[in-house]
């Protein structure tokens, strides 16, 4: 209801000022500069924005429809940064005959797609990061093999349609980078990342990523 009223108000303002409306957004969590950056794609000759740092505000003059879009963007991103819990599992493929109950669900999914002869959990870590943020976690496998997992959470997406986390993840060993990719993962879902570029003389490594927004 409140949103509807605000949209209506913006449209009325637009009608009253020859097609352009002006609105002042008081930011609750975003810095004005950050909000301005978010609005980059909406800027144009017909959009004027002034900012104040104290209190943090954006004063936007724009055509009515553009103003509604800008309001939607601010509403979507001007929220407290949520905590994101990241659960990582490093899985070794090939050469394991016993099923590993710790990775039963992932093992079943991989079994549908690949013909590796078994999988086992090499290491598991859980990290907490506030979005946007970076986390680096060391993981040690059973044989003492060390790995480093890095995750850069670039942003979280919160909307009525759902929540998702945008992040870059990488898995490295002292010998170099094993996996690296950018993902957008809905909160609570699991992405299993692997590579066809095998490591010389070593088993294929698979990284399981599961972000959960708190």
């Amino acid at each position, binding site marked *: 209801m409140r949103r509807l009223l605000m949209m209506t108000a913006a449209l009325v303002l637009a009608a009253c000022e020859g097609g352009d409306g002006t609105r002042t957004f008081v930011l609750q969590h975003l810095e004005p500069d950050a909000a301005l950056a978010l609005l980059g794609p909406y800027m144009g000759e017909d959009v004027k924005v002034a900012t104040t740092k104290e209190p943090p505000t954006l004063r936007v003059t724009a055509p009515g429809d553009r103003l509604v879009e800008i309001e939607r963007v601010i509403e979507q991103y001007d929220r407290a940064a949520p905590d994101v819990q990241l659960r990582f599992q490093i899985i070794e493929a090939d050469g394991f005959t016993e099923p590993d109950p710790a990775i039963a669900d992932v093992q079943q999914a991989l079994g549908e*797609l690949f013909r590796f002869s078994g999988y086992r959990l090499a290491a598991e870590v859980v990290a907490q990061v506030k979005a946007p943020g970076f986390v680096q976690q060391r993981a040690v496998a059973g044989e003492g093999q060390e790995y480093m997992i890095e995750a850069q959470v670039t942003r979280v997406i919160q909307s009525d349609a759902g929540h998702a986390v945008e992040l870059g993840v990488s898995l490295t060993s002292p010998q170099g980078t094993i996996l690296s990719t950018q*993902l957008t993962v809905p909160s609570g879902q699991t992405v299993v990342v692997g590579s066809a570029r095998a490591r010389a003389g070593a088993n294929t490594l698979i990284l399981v990523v599961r972000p959960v927004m708190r």
Partner: protein
Amino acid sequence: MNCDEARRALLEADPAELRGTGTGALALHLRDCASCRADAERILEGTAALNTAIGQAAAARPAPGVPALRRRARAARTRLLVPLAAAAALAVLLLSGDVMDALRSGDDARPVMVQRPDALRTPSVNAAGGRGVAVMRTANPDITVVWTF
């Protein structure tokens, strides 16, 4: 080359190898193994379907002055949101180097974003340039497999 080796090689093979042409180990294996040949054909079909989808997305790209959300999408990084088959079905779509090139083709050479309405419900991958990526749904709706090659 045995079937296990062939399955892995399929993920890195170029279209010609997938068709079984040439004298490479994979091509020779595909000519003799109906099972692996069927897998290769699925990959080729998936790539063709994806090429078509990307072509349609490129044709539907907005002209200047369209809503800002679309302009924002055009400015985004290369993002490969692979349209997937029905939820229960397993879909395997592979992006080869050719498809990556297709993504970059067009008048302004900007990446094309294929936006799905369920982007917040299904994982997606932002692939690095020059690399292929396969996004594979599994029978478990909460698990998606991403394979780079």
